[in-house]
């Protein structure tokens, strides 16, 4: 099984390298068509960071910085340079001169202050995490912005990724009630008439059908973008997306836009590149969330037993068609900076799992059943449904009867994250490029808050874990911070408050004629100014 | 006298679940040019089937002319190909039906419906069609014909509708008019008017009329000769005055008695004891014997032969003493 994955990976990397490092000279012009579903619900990641929005909004709205490589090294973008004070509490950004909004207005420090203070900090879902410690934003002149922090924040710079803090034009918010979340969400520049500084601007949006972005002729970087147009085709049916790709009607199916079942077949077609590179800063981690308040599951032996009873390689092979790696712990193994390499996945051992359950006192009844639990399934489509079916099957062999409950997203969110009315549920989370942002929400006891989606629904409380999170949040020394996260991963791995099943692998499928797509750890969310297509 | 229509040994069958039924069984009669002949009988006696058979209007899916000849002006209609038959219908033989409400298409104006046979048979050029319709309506006594042509059947009274039907049947100047119970659905005063109209037009246009009815009073008024039907068979035939004065068949006697006795010519003939037998359950021998006051054992044994006396015919063993086999 591992062979398949490695095979796919190496092909992906080689292709990615080939695509970026080829001695070919970039060509200007042409349009790149990609397909994704669902359709974006907005044009800016301020109101939601859902994948379809992020894919399109990042081409229109830039943040202050750009990012290089899988390890996400910040490089100048809208900010030409920046400095951090030694105590880590003052950050100064120098803005590039001559940058204009799509409507011709100049981009200034006032826009930055507004975008951070009034919008991102208040309304972006990670705004409080990023900017909660910002005391003041000062704008000494039009091209200088100074952030003053209450305390050092080691990951502060990462807030200036395109999906996190898009720069919005303050002059377009005249008359908008900034105190109302609904009013901000309904602002024209967010919903339908975006005005950004990015290399592309919105040309046409026919709902339910497609979006066309066109070159921004006034883009600040000379000679960019290469492409004339980026087109999104919205195709609700996975099979239809696969067909459109196969027929060459679309150039790119980013981030697992196609059903995994079709990926292998399409990937073998001549001129097609399959790549999982360029998703390192996302790190999707799939697990079964366990409600620790419910008796049999509150016993760590029961959780370990369940963890051992599930065959991760089978899940990867059969349900995810070979795309993914066995789930290990809270930080995915592809994270280049923070993963604790000492950890190994729980091995598939149903016999030992049975013994563990016996030992914990949950013996099989006369009907072969030890106990009954319910299972909710993340309503994100077919693979998740089949995962639910597999879990039910496998656990019933172990003597745990599972009743699967199905719901749509709203119902599922309410049941799991507000009512805590569940035993186990499948779900997944992104690690992002920093664990404080990515994983703290799931394990810190402060995040046991009814109504907080994708946070600590398990009711997991461990004083040491809380303490480690609190320390690492302020630790400026990378080595010490890494050690804190290593210990934290070990504890959580042992206690299995969630059953780690799979490190998902987002797969991009594209035709070889497209170049420059893979550039950093969130390639599909970068602005594609350097992407070009052979004639 | 050469007959306009000579029907010989006509047999009509319908398909039913229990097999083929003979609705008309070996019936023969003739109509001379300009003559009015009436066919009478209770419902189910087969008289309407004859009318439909003459124009070959029996739906192919449900029945057929199973035998016999229908010679009309020297042609055997029973053997004519369908397209040739269409040139007979509505052109040389016109037909009017029992219920003018049902027989007119509710969604077309009457002008259009009357004009149809004209246009179909090319009797008049298209631009003259409506003028001719107006003439026809005037002929059949419809007042304000110019307005009527734009109206729909439901806008007219029953009598007016039947006049429209007649106008339609006459449109192409047929030589034979088949009137299938033309007055049954109308009220009494209108009935008389319509019959008078048919009679008058017959004289004026010199056409023959085949009148299908169960109403003996009507027969005595307009018909020269009468054919009496019972259970698909002709039981008696002859000049109206002779038949009515001295019926040869007990069934004819019964009919006459019933209509006299009731005094209302519209009354159904229920005074003959018993009912018309279902065609599927016809008795052996004479079909009428179960209801016949004079029935004898030999009536059950065999079907009586047709006997003749002058212009009269009858199929009853009791006529043997005075009549000869025809």
């Amino acid at each position: 099984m591992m062979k398949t994955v490695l095979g796919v990976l190496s092909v992906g990397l080689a292709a990615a390298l080939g695509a970026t490092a080829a001695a070919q000279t970039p060509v200007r012009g042409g349009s790149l068509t990609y397909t994704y579903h669902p359709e974006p619900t907005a044009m800016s990641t301020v109101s939601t960071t859902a994948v379809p929005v992020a894919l399109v909004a990042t081409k229109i709205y830039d943040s202050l910085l750009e990012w290089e490589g899988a390890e996400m090294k910040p490089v100048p973008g809208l900010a030409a340079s920046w400095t951090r004070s030694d105590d880590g509490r003052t950050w100064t950004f120098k803005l590039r001169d001559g940058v204009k909004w799509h409507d011709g207005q100049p981009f200034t420090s006032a826009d930055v202050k507004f975008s951070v203070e009034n919008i991102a900090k208040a309304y972006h879902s990670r705004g409080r995490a990023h900017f909660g410690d910002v005391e003041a934003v000062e704008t000494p002149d039009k091209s200088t912005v100074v952030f003053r922090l209450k305390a050092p924040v080691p990951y502060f710079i990462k807030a200036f990724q395109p999906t996190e803090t898009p720069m919005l034009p303050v002059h377009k918010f005249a008359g908008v009630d900034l105190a109302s979340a609904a009013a901000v969400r309904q602002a024209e520049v967010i919903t339908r008439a975006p005005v950004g500084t990015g290399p592309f601007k919105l040309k046409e949006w026919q709902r339910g059908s497609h979006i066309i972005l066109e070159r921004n002729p006034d883009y600040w970087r000379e000679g960019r973008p290469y492409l004339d147009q980026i087109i999104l085709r919205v195709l609700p049916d996975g099979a239809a997306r696969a067909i459109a790709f196969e027929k060459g009607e679309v150039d790119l199916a980013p981030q697992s836009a196609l059903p995994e079942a079709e990926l292998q077949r399409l990937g073998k077609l001549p001129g097609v590149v399959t790549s999982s590179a360029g998703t390192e800063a996302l790190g999707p981690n799939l697990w079964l969330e366990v409600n620790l308040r419910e008796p049999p599951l509150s016993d760590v032996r029961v959780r370990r037993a369940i963890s051992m009873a599930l065959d991760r390689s089978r899940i990867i092979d059969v349900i995810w068609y070979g795309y993914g790696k066995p789930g290990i712990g809270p930080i995915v193994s592809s994270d280049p900076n923070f993963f604790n390499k000492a950890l190994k996945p729980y091995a598939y051992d149903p016999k030992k799992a049975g013994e563990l359950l016996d030992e914990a006192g949950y013996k099989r009844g006369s009907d072969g059943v030890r106990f009954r639990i319910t299972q909710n399934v993340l309503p994100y489509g077919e693979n998740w449904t089949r995962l639910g079916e597999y879990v039910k099957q496998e656990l019933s062999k172990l003597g745990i009867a599972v009743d699967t409950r199905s719901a749509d997203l709203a119902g599922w969110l309410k049941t799991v994250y507000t009512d805590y009315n569940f035993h186990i549920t499948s779900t997944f989370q992104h690690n992002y490029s920093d664990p404080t942002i990515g994983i703290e929400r799931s394990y810190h006891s402060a995040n046991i808050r009814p109504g907080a989606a994708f946070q600590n629904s398990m009711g997991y409380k461990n004083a040491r874990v809380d303490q480690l999170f609190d320390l690492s949040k302020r630790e400026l020394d990378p080595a010490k911070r890494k050690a804190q996260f290593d210990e934290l991963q070990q504890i959580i791995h042992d206690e299995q408050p969630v059953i780690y099943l799979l490190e998902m692998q987002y797969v991009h499928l594209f035709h070889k004629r497209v170049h420059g797509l893979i550039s950093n750890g969130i390639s599909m969310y970068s602005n594609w100014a350097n992407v070009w297509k052979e004639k | 006298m050469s007959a306009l229509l000579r029907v010989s040994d006509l047999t009509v069958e319908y398909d039913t679940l229990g097999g083929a039924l003979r609705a008309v069984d070996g019936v023969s009669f003739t109509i001379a040019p300009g003559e009015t002949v009436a066919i009478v009988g209770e419902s189910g006696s087969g008289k309407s089937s004859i009318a439909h058979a003459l124009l070959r209007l029996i739906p192919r899916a449900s029945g057929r002319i199973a035998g016999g000849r229908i010679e009309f002006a020297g042609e055997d209609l029973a053997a004519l190909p369908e397209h040739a038959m269409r040139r007979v219908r509505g052109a040389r033989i016109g037909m009017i039906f029992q219920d003018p409400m049902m027989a007119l298409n509710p969604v077309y104006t009457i002008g259009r419906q009357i004009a149809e046979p004209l246009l179909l048979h090319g009797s008049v050029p298209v631009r003259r069609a409506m003028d001719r319709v107006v003439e026809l309506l005037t002929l059949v006594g419809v007042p304000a014909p110019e307005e009527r042509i734009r109206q729909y059947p439901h806008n007219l009274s029953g009598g007016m509708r039947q006049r429209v039907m007649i106008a339609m049947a006459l449109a192409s100047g047929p030589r034979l008019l088949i009137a299938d119970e033309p007055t049954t659905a109308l009220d009494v005063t209108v009935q008389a008017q319509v019959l008078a109209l048919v009679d008058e037009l017959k004289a004026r246009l010199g056409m023959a009329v085949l009148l299908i009815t169960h109403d003996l009073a009507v027969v005595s008024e307009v018909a020269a000769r009468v054919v009496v039907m019972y259970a698909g068979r002709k039981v008696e035939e002859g000049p109206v005055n002779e038949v009515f004065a001295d019926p040869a068949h007990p069934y004819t006697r019964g009919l006459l008695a019933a209509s006299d006795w009731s005094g209302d010519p519209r009354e159904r003939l229920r005074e003959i004891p018993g009912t018309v037998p279902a065609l599927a359950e016809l008795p052996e021998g004479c079909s009428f014997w179960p209801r016949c006051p004079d029935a004898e054992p030999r009536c059950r044994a065999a079907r009586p032969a047709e006997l003749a006396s002058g212009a009269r015919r009858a199929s009853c063993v009791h006529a043997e003493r005075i009549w000869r086999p025809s």
Partner: protein
Amino acid sequence: MTSRLSYVALRALQVIPAVLAIAVLNFILLHMAPGDAADVIAGLSGHASAEMTAELRRSFGLDQPLIVQFFVYIGRLLTLDLGISLIQSRPVVELIAERMGATLILMLTAIGVAVGIGLLLGILAALRHRSWTDTALSVLALVVYATPQFWLGLMLIVFFSITLDIFPSGGMRTIGAEFGPIHSVLDVARHLVLPAGTLGLFYVALYTRLMRTSMLDIMTLDYITTARAKGMSELRIAFTHAARNALLPIVTLLGVQVGHLLGGSILVETVFGWPGLGRLVLDALLQRDLVLLLGILFISSVVVVLTNLLVDVIYGLLDPRLARK
């Protein structure tokens, strides 16, 4: 004419309580569902804190007592304000208007072609009653009738789009292509063939069967015999005297079909990526976008009711007996 106008006006007035009732029912149904749009938005944003979700709920007015929400909703409805989509943050009217065209094109084409072909085939089957043609048509109609629409759609894609490659597999037009007006129409038509075919085939079958039965009924009536007695050919009778009368019972069904069609278009739009209302309604439902969903259901019931009104008028035109009533 005035009488017909006032009849239409009266019928139009009768529509109002029906539409209001639909609004109330939908409101109640939707609020019985677990979870709301704030949950979904918070969920989709990945990191929302409980405070953020609460703030969203407050600014949408979803934290108000149900009865207050209801009166706010009805009040807005009476001024024909359908509100602002919770998820997409744009006026519902705009969102619907953007999709309405696509759905109408799809539905009208499907139903138009289906009625046309279905009626012709129905007449043909009736004319050839109990013949080989009749049997073949009946069997074919039954088979189509029994085929799940979405599956049929998939099979049509495989055959016509992949194997033969003569029609596009999805979408409504060639994106990004700069066509002249004629080409644009042709382009949409090309994209329309498969989805309209999928949606329409079922109705072809339906109307073939209905028309056949109706024709067979009519063909036994007296005025058909009258027409035959005039010397008309069967074909001519079928198309003039019989067809128009046979249409009457079918026209009344058309009104009911529109609602049905709207439902069917959900599946077909999903399979073919057709940017119509059907997809919008499903997405709105799954995202618990109550405002949008209520708006769509409201508009679609208005459409259904108006269609029924139109059907009444057409019926009046087809059947002169009703004109004076």
